[in-house]
């Protein structure tokens, strides 16, 4: 019962809303160790559609300096996966939008994959983004476990991903496909270049069965709205982390930033 209900939160969002979906990434345990749940609540109140919570890792291969630094600070402040699940234990009492955990494989392996999935289900996580889990490994080793606990695995595509592989990813995806905006690691950028637009167009013309969200380099109202003309929405990480870094009043600054991105 609860499994199907949980796994539908993401689908529900995309059923209700076809465009301008805004997903925000932030690192667990940052800026202060116990901010994790507050930030989720502020984001929901500010009108964000999905939340991705980053699980800090010592060696985040796909991340740029901003997210690296937030993860390192969180680890220094004593953040662990175990603590994250404690923090999230009651998150579903106050947060209703989909929550995705994003991070690297090694901490998940050490926690125990099945144990990790069980905890995710218990606290109400809807999906996982594990950039260093390749599709073939997922299908062979992890798919059954993830599905047993109602967890979607979100795949990424990039400008270098071949059409055949995009089709394959579409076939195995649930929820949405994460379109990495350029050949790059994470990091805020202030504009979207013509060759990126060509890639967005190319993917849009493929008429994938899954919704797409564009991420990496989205930072403000301009880049967000450009992304939204080519996909169902966009994901913002580094630019939001920068807001958190400088914030003296998380609730107010989060509200302001999200309003600015939405352009209302």
């Amino acid at each position, binding site marked *: 019962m609860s499994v199907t209900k949980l796994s539908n939160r993401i689908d529900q969002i995309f059923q209700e809303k076809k465009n301008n979906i805004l997903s925000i990434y932030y690192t667990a345990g940052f800026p202060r160790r116990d901010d994790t749940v507050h930030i989720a609540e502020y984001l929901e109140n500010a009108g964000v559609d999905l939340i991705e919570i980053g699980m800090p890792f*010592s060696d985040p291969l796909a991340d740029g300096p901003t997210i*690296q630094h937030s993860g390192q600070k969180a680890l220094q402040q004593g953040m662990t996966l175990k603590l994250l699940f404690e923090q999230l234990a009651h998150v579903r009492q106050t947060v209703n939008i989909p929550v995705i955990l994003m991070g690297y494989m*090694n901490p998940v392996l050490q926690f125990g994959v099945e144990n990790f999935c069980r905890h995710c289900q218990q606290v109400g996580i809807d999906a996982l983004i594990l950039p260093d889990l390749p599709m073939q490994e997922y299908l062979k080793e992890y798919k059954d476990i993830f599905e047993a606990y109602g967890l979607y695995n979100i795949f990424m595509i990039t400008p270098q991903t071949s059409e055949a592989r995009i089709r394959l990813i579409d076939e195995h995806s649930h929820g949405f496909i994460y379109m990495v905006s350029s050949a790059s690691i994470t990091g805020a950028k202030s504009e979207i270049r013509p060759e990126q637009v060509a890639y967005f167009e190319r993917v849009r013309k493929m008429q994938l069965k899954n919704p797409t969200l564009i991420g990496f380099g989205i930072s403000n109202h301009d880049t967000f709205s450009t992304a939204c003309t080519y996909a169902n929405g966009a994901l913002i990480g580094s630019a939001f982390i920068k807001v958190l870094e400088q914030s003296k009043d998380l609730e107010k600054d989060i509200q302001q930033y999200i309003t600015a991105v939405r352009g209302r």
Partner: protein
Amino acid sequence: MAAVKELKKTSYQVNENGYYGKFGGAYIPEMLYPNIEELRENYLQIMQDPSFQAAFHQLLKDYVGRPTPLYFANRLSEKFGAKIYLKREDLCHTGAHKVNNTIGQILLARQLNKKFIIAETGAGQHGVATATVCALMGMECKVFMGALDMERQKPNVERMRILGAEVIPAVSGNQTLKDATNEAMRYWINYPVDSHYIIGSVVGPHPYPDMVARFQSVVSAEIRQQLLEQTGTEQPDYVIACVGGGSNAAGAYYHFLDEPDVKLIAAEAAGHGITSGESAATTALGRIGILHGSKTLLMQTDDGQVVEPYSISAGLDYPGIGPLHAHLYDTGRATFYSITDDEAMDAGILLSRLEGIIPAIESAHALGALHYMDLKPEDVVVISLSGRGDKDLETYIKWGKY
């Protein structure tokens, strides 16, 4: 098809999915998938092409100075009561075995029409070997090096710069080898089409461990032939090598992997001792995990954060080992000894005094393993003397006990 058959020849070779037993694979973000896929699809075909092989071996001969001697170490043999031979990789151009791999990979990069080269380095040996072959081929070269390591290894930084390479400080994490590797991979993600990443050991995502092992396998090919000439038999009783990531060991073991009578001995760096909290002894302290695209044994916290290793030898200062070695350890095919800083330094001085050869401190760890072995007078022992001690002079001086 022939290539695949050859791969399947033995259980110690990588399988078609990139695994050695339960270790290996390619745990890389989608952003790197096309690069890794391009390599995976092409590396065997390119490497096995006769003209590639000819160019590779010509350079190994004329430029690197191969074959390196297999030297019967008379006084060392007397001391330990066995027949000890040193495979003199220290006599390679640039002073270590690392250049065997960089020569191979830069030829491969040219076949793949890559425009520039990136590499990571810890002590600077692999960085120097990469900068060297880039100068040789007239290719642009960027070497990532932990900011802390740049402080500790100034002469090698300048060596790379003299050779025309750009040395880019890695300021993330702990600013050492593992962070330099992260930075190199991040850079590769940002420039996926034109750059080739020359990884410095048998680590990283498949096909790197297999590719680097194949380039280094020239070492054991030569050992076989030289032993035959010198002793009348191709097989030693023992092959000893130090393991940082494991490339010199992979090269020295390669053609003996399927001969169980040849005992494989690995020396890993115990630093101040495996219980001291300052160590790089991966098999003693590590658990299975994923780093830099490979599932392997890894030093880490209970929470799965990678631990910063310590060794007096910068070249052994890596928190993991290559997946081949994790498999050799797991199956018992190789025996691992943890050698402390002190034991390695003593062994380095011993070799200097007995044979007139000052070894790299990495290689001195391999010599340190001799003390733990139960040797018989008729045993034939080959030690991979992976590098020379010139780069380590300052460490020897600081240590001072000579």
